[in-house]
């Protein structure tokens, strides 16, 4: 059974590119455009991994991450934070609240795919 990946971003063009990239690798994909939608999709879609943008309307990526980590049911969910703000403090903050990896935009598609695969245990 294919791994499930949830893409969360408010930029339509980024969503388009990520969706295409991950589908090509054979993952099952779902999309959310803001934080609240993301939480709802996690509950219904039950992804194995989540690509989570930080700067979003309604709920920021940090808030989403914190909310997910507060629920033990999501312990297995891998979270990769994506941010266009490259400051070190934000990387540290993201990791501190329970993100598994942190990727700055713009990212290399190859590296992102490699990282996602290794995190899911597909070598």
């Amino acid at each position, binding site marked *: 059974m294919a791994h499930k990946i949830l893409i969360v971003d*408010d*930029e*339509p*063009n*980024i969503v*388009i*590119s*990520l969706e*295409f*990239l991950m589908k*090509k690798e054979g993952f099952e994909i779902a999309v959310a*455009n803001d934080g609240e939608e993301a939480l709802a999709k996690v509950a219904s879609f039950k992804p194995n991994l989540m690509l989570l943008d930080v*700067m979003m*309307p309604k709920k920021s990526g940090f808030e989403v991450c914190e909310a997910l980590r507060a629920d033990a049911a999501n312990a297995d969910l891998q979270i990769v934070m994506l941010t*266009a*703000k*490259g*400051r070190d403090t934000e990387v540290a903050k993201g990791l501190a609240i329970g993100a598994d990896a942190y990727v*700055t*935009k*713009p*990212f*290399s*598609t*190859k590296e992102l795919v490699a990282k996602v695969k290794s995190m899911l245990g597909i070598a």
Partner: protein
Amino acid sequence: MLSGWFILFLSTVYMAILFAVARFGDARADAGKSIISANVYALSLAVYCTSWTFYGSVGRATSGGLSFLTIYIGPTLMLLMTGVILKMIRISKVNRITSIADFIASRYGKSQLLAGLVTIIAVIGVVPYIALQLKAVSASLEALLHESGSDFLPWWLDSTFLIAALLAVFTILFGTRHLDATERHEGMVAAIAFESVVKLLAFLAVGVFVTYSMFDGLGELFQRAAASPELARLLQTDASRAGTWTAMILLSGLAIIFLPRQFQIIVVENVDESHLKRAVWLFPLYLLLINIFVLPIALGGLLHFQGQPFNPDTFVLTLPLARGAEMLALLVFIGGLSAATGMVIVETIALSTMVCNDLVMPWLLRYSRIGERKDLSRLLIVIRRAAITLILLLGYVYFRAAGEAYALVGIGLISFAAVAQFAPAMFGGMYWKQGNHAGAVAGLLGGFSVWLYTLLLPSFARSGWIGNGFVENGLFGIAGLKAQALFGLGGLDEISHCLWWSLLVNLGLYIAVSLTTRPDALEAGQAERFVDVFRHSGRETDTRLWRGRASMEELLNLLERFLGKARTHKQLGAYARKRGTTSWQKLPIDAGLVHFAEAQLAGAIGSASARVMVASVTQEEDIGLEEVLDILDEATQVRAYSRNLEAKSRELEAATTELRAVNERLRELDKMKDDFISTVTHELRTPLTSIRALSEMLHEDPRMELSDRKRFLGIIVSETVRLTRLINQILDMAKLESGRAEWTTSEVDVREVIRESMDSLEQLFREKGVMLTGELPETCPLVMADRDRLTQVMINLLSNAVKFVPGETGKVHVRLSADTERVRIVVGDNGPGLTADECNVIFEKFRQGGNTMTDKPQGTGLGLPISRQIVEYFGGNLWVESEPGAGANFIFTVPLPGPEEQQ
């Protein structure tokens, strides 16, 4: 029927009551529970009202009408100068001053000469005044006995002498209980306050009796007086005597603080400076009350005794007696006795202190071997008691010798004029540091001589004791030297004449000599201590003004000799505690201790003698005048420095606060800049992310389907466009904010700008099916602006509007209007509208309104901030008026140029 013995018995009983009151006061003081309250203090000031007031005021009113009031108005006005009196009290407390002679002497370098001079003036001026009191008692006694037809006392028993002797005993008992004259005589003060009440009640009683029992109230009295041409003149003051009126007020104003007994009560006997607050109105109230019935009694007497022989000075007694009111007459007699005894007791204590400390002690210390005795405290008390006896005896002798002579009757004001001579030296000493010893001596001597020549000696001449040639024809027959018309200054009464000349000479000499001579070192220090008494809280200057060596043994010895062992040890113990040492044996032998010892001694023997004694047991270094002035100067400078320092530190504090605020602001700006850069980074990276991801996929997957390929390339192009626009706007914003933007200002027709902008966006509106309408006036004034920038604003507002209105049903309306001051452009739409919060937020950088998901690549979040910057640059405003669901009106104004700019 009043018998002489009965009256004498009554007097003795009254004196016994006085004794009891005084004993009670002393006992309470010893127990540490002083009965001297503010009220008692204020009442004791009424020792000012002697028998001269009690009997004499009515006498004066029968001849001078209302002019007797000046003697009481002056003190009222003087007492209101609370600051002056408070300073006198403070100086005296700090320097342990015990009399007015000591005050003046201490100020001018602890001068024995000045102390003696002031004492002599006081004794000469005041002893006859004491005699006058004895005479008043004698006269009242006589009136009482004569009217009631009683026998006189046996020839060998003189009632006045008896009274004088009783007074001497009383004064000795309560005036010399302690040696230290700064230790107050609380029992005596209590007795004086009691006497004040008695004499006031007695006088009010006779006043009410005469006015309402003998006559039919004030109205009738005044009516009847007005009917008689002789009495009518008493009801109206004589404006031609205006000078005398003012002079009397000045004279009595000075007397209230410079008469030795007044100085004693107001200054020396003051327990608490705050009592002055009560005295400042209660004492004048007392004066007012005791004077209300003076004129009515005078008129009543004149009306009652018309055509008979009478003595107006005894009206208060003879009027009740004439109606057979013997008990009232007795009360009045006791009241008069109160007035006389009160004055005699306090005056004698004050004078005896001065005589002992300022005349006898210096003489004994200098010319006899008495200074070597082991214990002098007993001797001091003996001297003081002898002085009391002597002064009373002098008074009695003068009374016997003068009899009815003018020199006695007129002595009240003559006495006032004598003590007025202290005024220049006293006031100058308190407020003028340059006033010095030589000036004070010259002024006092000059003033005193003039007083002697123009007032006292003429009064002797009038009494027939000496020839009156110098009054009638002038000394040596020189007309200009006529004693009461000096240098031809006539037309004045003798008191005003004397006051004018004596104060002129006194003040003139004091100032002139002070300005032309230099003080010595000691004096300069004292001047500082007196004038700046409120500022000298610390003892630093005091201790720096004395240098030398002393031994504890010798100082102790000296103090014990004058104060006695017990007292010395008690005082030293208290001083040691104040210095923070457990016992006085451990006190450091320094300037402070020497100063303390000298002050203690000054309380007992006066400052001048104390200085001599302390100097005799210590090896003092001579500090020259220059050095003293330097030290004082330095002290003044230190004070100035510390004031400056305080001001500086306040300034620094203010500056620090300011700096902190600025720093805070900078930090805020820094954070804003940081946020801005972070935001810009984010905004730039977002399109780059799509571009990079899509390009990489295109690059790596050559077999990608054509439709995807086309779609991705389209996204890449639009993201690139967005990126370019973003960079342009950021640069534009940065230029505007840093003020480096280029502006080409010219006259612009706003209508054209609007029309062009609408035309250029027509395509966009048509594509979305939005209706765009304009409402432009026929004419519109030109504004001064940059045409391209204005177009930029217009296009920004229009493209924002089209972005947010719904397709097909959307409407955008542009309206231009103008008044005399500005043009106003409104871009209205029927879009979703904005909340009040959003109305502000949208003008911040990178904050966009509405759902950005729909059309994200279009907006950068910089359009409105840039537009606002531009409009504000032209001096206008840009804002939005909107409510959710009701569309939005973006409004901006551009001001019209002023008339002078138009030319």
